[in-house]
């Protein structure tokens, strides 16, 4: 809502407050003023000029040489507007003038001809193009004939005004009108509201003699008021009206349409004007649309109507989409002589659904949707009649044609002062409460320590006691509320085990050198299941903004890899990112199965101490080490199982299993996938944290620090390449028995000195007895047994 401060002063005295200060007061009381716009900002030295002569520039087709009387002198000004003509009163920016955006007008020569200033369009005065009347949208603005040459345009044409831009919340529909804002400002400044005085002379003839009104859908339209005004002259509105509309963000059209819009802005009550003759039938019937009915609305679109759309008809065909937009077939034009002014109360839900269905929002529908004041329907119609009589020379027929089944009782809210104070934690005096309610013009009776408050119909947001609490508090001042803390017993607070584990993972991974990333949950259909551990059916949005963000992800990796590519494309060659977040799987439930996952993606160098020449590229085993460390941190035993997945290197992929359940995957990206993403060797992991955290954590029990030394023996084996070290390790462990404490690979060799298809793996075995110091003989006995077993299984000892 845009509020002209000058216009506002028609209804309430703003005490001459500077607009910014007025705006601040309004904001602090509850309606946020988003901007304070000085309409004349940056404008100076702009006067009314009279174009005495105008001829084509000899050197340029599109330019005209004008002799313009600006009061003291007649100046030559070159003008490029197509609609410039001799005999016009125009807006002249004289040399030295300033225009918005810091533009300064200077004497100049245009194609050899002197130009002493500029003839201006409204856009050049800082008015938005979409608000400039259509006739002047492509050229200069032409002032009325009675404009006085040489006078200041800014003051004479109401540009010396400030507009407050209100950011209205949906509850404050009452402030979608100048009068509504006036009531609010009056309450804040403790002033009176002056309503417009409505007086005009009625014709002898009754409106009902020319027009009949039927309402077939009284639930959707409980009140319909029509007035008939004849012998009008459709023309441009006076400057003050045009400027007020433009200040309010409405484009002027002609005096009839402008009057309906003016009253809409003034009262918040949407009006519509029909050309009486184009109605043809002298009848208005409000009903629901029929199947296959259509209407061409004023914006030129033909709309197919549905049964629950409320339409205004002439008894036969639709002439307006009720409360949303008029029809082209009954539009007021230059030729119109008689108009029907409609002022109605439409049910907000009906308008809301129609407006939504047709994707059509207008100043009218946005007010109906939120509910208009039932007590302003008739006054608004009268006000429009008065203005049409004044501005269009119209003759208002006697009375109105009315259908009225609307209940307009005031809501009564009963609340006790104690309730108000206990909710606020304050001690506001009873008299102060009464004073505030009085300022709001809420009729209040006090009885038995209860306030019985009649809420005016303009404030439909006030329904319950808590609403009164807010009204009192906001006008008393929120600064007056003390600061306390809840008095209830203190509670321990804290994180759940799951949440704590999530932090453990975070700290571990960051300690390991990974950066935490966050990516979008919405992705394309194509990548939604890519690299997913447990792909399910897709979950698509009903109305996505783009295909890129149309489907919920089932794997974190595609977006995380996009982030890696983003970085490598910007010359960060080594990237190690992790992300924790939900993947969205279809399940049995109505809700999706949201499972929290961890994903890691790494490329480039893992170690890089350049001057010491220590470099280590990331590989499968770096990732495996990270996962193993994580499992150790959480006290779970993960198993690695060779596997294959689309997008991963078939020889370098392993699934992670926990208690037999597959909960994750690690692997190197498939060369093709890497190429598509413009990546070098990249290793990835995805793991279900939900599954990982589901395992209860065992209590940590201390084992005594060994009192006896352990003994280490090595064994180097030559194996077939297809034999996995893990298999051999299991064999060693089972053969080693109780005394074998630890086995680890300490060397791998696959080179020239070996037979083709063979590799050499060396293990280091640690023997230990917690009870005593092992003797060489004891160890040798066990170790021999291990070696024996290995040899029997086909391993060759390497000499």
């Amino acid at each position, binding site marked *: 809502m845009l509020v002209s401060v000058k216009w506002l002063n028609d209804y309430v005295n703003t005490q001459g407050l500077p607009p910014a200060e007025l705006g601040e007061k309004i904001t602090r009381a509850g309606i946020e003023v988003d901007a304070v716009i000085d309409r004349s900002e940056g404008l100076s030295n702009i006067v009314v000029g009279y174009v005495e002569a105008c001829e084509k520039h000899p050197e340029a087709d599109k330019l005209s040489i004008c002799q313009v009387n600006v009061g003291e002198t007649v100046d030559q000004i070159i003008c490029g507007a197509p609609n410039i003509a001799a005999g016009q009163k125009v807006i002249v920016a004289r040399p030295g003038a300033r225009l918005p955006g810091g533009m300064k007008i200077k004497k100049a020569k245009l194609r050899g001809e002197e130009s002493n200033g500029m003839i201006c369009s409204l856009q050049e005065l800082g008015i938005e193009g979409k608000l400039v009347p259509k006739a002047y949208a492509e050229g200069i603005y032409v002032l009325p004939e009675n404009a006085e040459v040489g006078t200041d345009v800014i003051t004479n044409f109401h540009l010396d005004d400030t507009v407050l831009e209100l950011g209205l919340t949906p509850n404050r529909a009452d402030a979608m009108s100048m009068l509504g804002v006036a009531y609010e400002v009056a309450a804040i400044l403790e002033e009176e509201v002056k309503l417009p005085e409505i007086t005009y002379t009625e014709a002898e003839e009754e409106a009902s003699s020319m027009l009949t009104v039927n309402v077939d859908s009284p639930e959707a339209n409980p009140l319909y008021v029509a007035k008939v005004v004849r012998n009008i002259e459709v023309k441009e509105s006076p400057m003050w009206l045009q400027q007020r509309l433009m200040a309010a963000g409405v484009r002027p059209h002609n005096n009839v349409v402008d009057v309906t819009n003016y009253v809409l802005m003034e009262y918040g009550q949407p009006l519509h004007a029909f050309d009486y003759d184009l109605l043809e039938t002298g009848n208005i019937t409000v009903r629901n649309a029929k199947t296959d009915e259509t209407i061409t609305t004023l914006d030129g679109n033909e709309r197919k109507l549905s049964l629950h759309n409320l339409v205004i008809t002439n008894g036969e065909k639709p002439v307006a989409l009720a409360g949303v937009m008029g029809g082209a077939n009954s539009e007021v034009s230059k030729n119109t002589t008689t108009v029907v002014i409609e002022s109605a109360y439409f049910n907000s839900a009906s308008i809301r659904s129609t407006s939504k269905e047709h994707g059509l929002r207008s100043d009218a529908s946005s007010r109906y949707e939120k509910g208009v004041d039932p007590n302003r329907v008739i006054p608004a119609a009268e006000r429009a009649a008065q203005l049409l009589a004044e501005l269009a020379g119209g003759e208002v027929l006697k009375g109105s044609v009315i259908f009225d089944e609307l209940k307009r009782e005031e809501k009564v809210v009963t609340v006790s002062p104690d309730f108000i104070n206990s909710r606020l934690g304050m001690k506001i005096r009873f008299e102060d409460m009464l004073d505030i309610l009085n300022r709001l013009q809420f009729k209040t009776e006090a009885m038995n320590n209860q306030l019985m408050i009649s809420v005016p119909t303009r404030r439909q947001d006030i329904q319950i006691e808590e609403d009164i609490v807010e009204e009192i508090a906001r006008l008393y001042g*929120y600064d007056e509320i003390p600061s306390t803390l809840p008095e209830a017993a203190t509670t321990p607070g804290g994180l759940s085990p799951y949440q704590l584990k999530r932090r453990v993972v975070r700290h571990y991974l960051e300690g390991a*050198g990974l950066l*935490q*990333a966050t990516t979008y949950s919405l992705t394309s259909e194509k990548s939604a299941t890519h690299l997913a551990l447990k792909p399910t059916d897709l979950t698509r949005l*009903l109305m996505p903004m783009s295909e890129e963000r149309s489907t919920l992800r089932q794997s974190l990796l595609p977006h995380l890899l996009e982030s890696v590519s983003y970085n490598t494309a910007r010359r*960060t060659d080594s990237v190690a990112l992790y992300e924790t*977040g939900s993947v969205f799987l279809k399940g049995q439930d109505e809700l999706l199965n949201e499972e929290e996952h961890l994903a890691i993606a790494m490329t480039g160098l893992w170690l890089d101490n350049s001057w010491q020449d220590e470099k280590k590229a990331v590989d499968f085993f770096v990732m495996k080490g990270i996962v193993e460390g994580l499992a150790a941190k959480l006290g779970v035993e993960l198993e690695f199982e060779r596997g294959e997945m689309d997008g991963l290197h078939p020889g370098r992929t392993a699934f992670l299993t926990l208690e037999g359940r597959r909960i994750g995957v690690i692997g190197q990206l498939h060369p093709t996938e890497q190429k598509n993403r413009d990546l070098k060797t990249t290793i990835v992991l995805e793991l279900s944290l939900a599954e990982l955290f589901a395992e209860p954590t065992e209590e940590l029990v201390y084992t005594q620090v060994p009192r006896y030394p352990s003994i280490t023996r090595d064994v180097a084996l030559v194996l077939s390449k297809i034999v996995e070290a893990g298999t051999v390790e299991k064999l060693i462990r089972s053969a080693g028995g109780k005394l074998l404490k630890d086995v680890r690979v300490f060397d791998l060799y696959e080179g020239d000195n070996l037979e083709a298809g063979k590799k050499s793996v060396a293990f280091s075995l640690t023997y230990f007895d917690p009870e005593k110091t092992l003797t060489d003989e004891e160890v040798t006995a066990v170790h021999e047994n291990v070696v024996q077993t290995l040899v029997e299984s086909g391993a060759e000892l390497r000499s």
Partner: protein
Amino acid sequence: MEIQLNELKTQALEKIAAATDVKELNAVRVAYLGKKGPITDLLKGMGKLPAEDRPKMGALVNVVREEVTERLEERMEILEEQAINEKLQSETIDITLPGRPVRTGNAHPLTRVVEEIEDLFISMGYEVEEGPEVEKDYYNFEALNLPKGHPARDMQDTFYISEELLLRTHTSPVQARTMEAKGGEPIKIICPGKVYRRDSDDATHSHQFTQIEGLVIGEDIRMSDLKGTLSVFAKKMFGDDREIRLRPSFFPFTEPSVEMDISCFKCGGEGCNVCKKTGWIEILGAGMVHPNVLEMAGYDSKRLTGFAFGMGPERIAMLKYGIEDIRHFYTNDVRFLSQFERTEV
């Protein structure tokens, strides 16, 4: 023999003095005092002496031997020290060369902000509750006093999956779920999480962002308690000298509803580009839980009251660190992320 002995001694002492390193000196030791050295030889040759001369001669040899040994040890000490010094000299490094970097990562700036807020409220006795990001219309809207067709639903453009299922537009459904689960009992929770709105991504809008909300329900919870709680939060988060102010606002699930501004932490209230010259910065929305919301979750709104507040970690991070574009949070540029390594404690 005595003359021979003295000559030997003089020779040995000269050689000891002339030795320039440990190795040379050790050679002298072997040459004179070793098993095959001349002094040993002399001792061996004593058998040929008359018996009465032997003790005297023996004593004389021992004196020489002791003196040579002593001088040798002295010299050895000097040479060893000299050797150590030389070694140390040769081992000197350029301590200005860079150290071996300890590779560490760090949390995403949003995690950093969320955890800071979580920890603050945990210290005040709050628990952390989370909920699904794909939510039922009921919990996202209806249970929060936003029935179907309510005009305030326009405030939040929603990604629907079906008529009844949507991407949550705020974390408030977690509050609704918690209230339903608690069955009328007091509550003190904070709810962080991802939320989604049908917005085009640009420097200040993101279709996905994070929220963190708080909810307290109990007997006699007053608006002053809300103000006090938010004041503690503002001071902890933005500095001890922060002041707060409440402005009336509207949210369907609270009544009264407020927006909280803090005094600008950059200019202290004088007006600057961060606070758009107002001296105040809008931080969060809050209010007293609407009685309809309490009743829908099975609470007796006459007996228990509550307050709720909600804020956007993106906005807080942007204000706090001066981040100019919300899309940075989701692009994961390493040059952006790694700036949030340093602690501020």
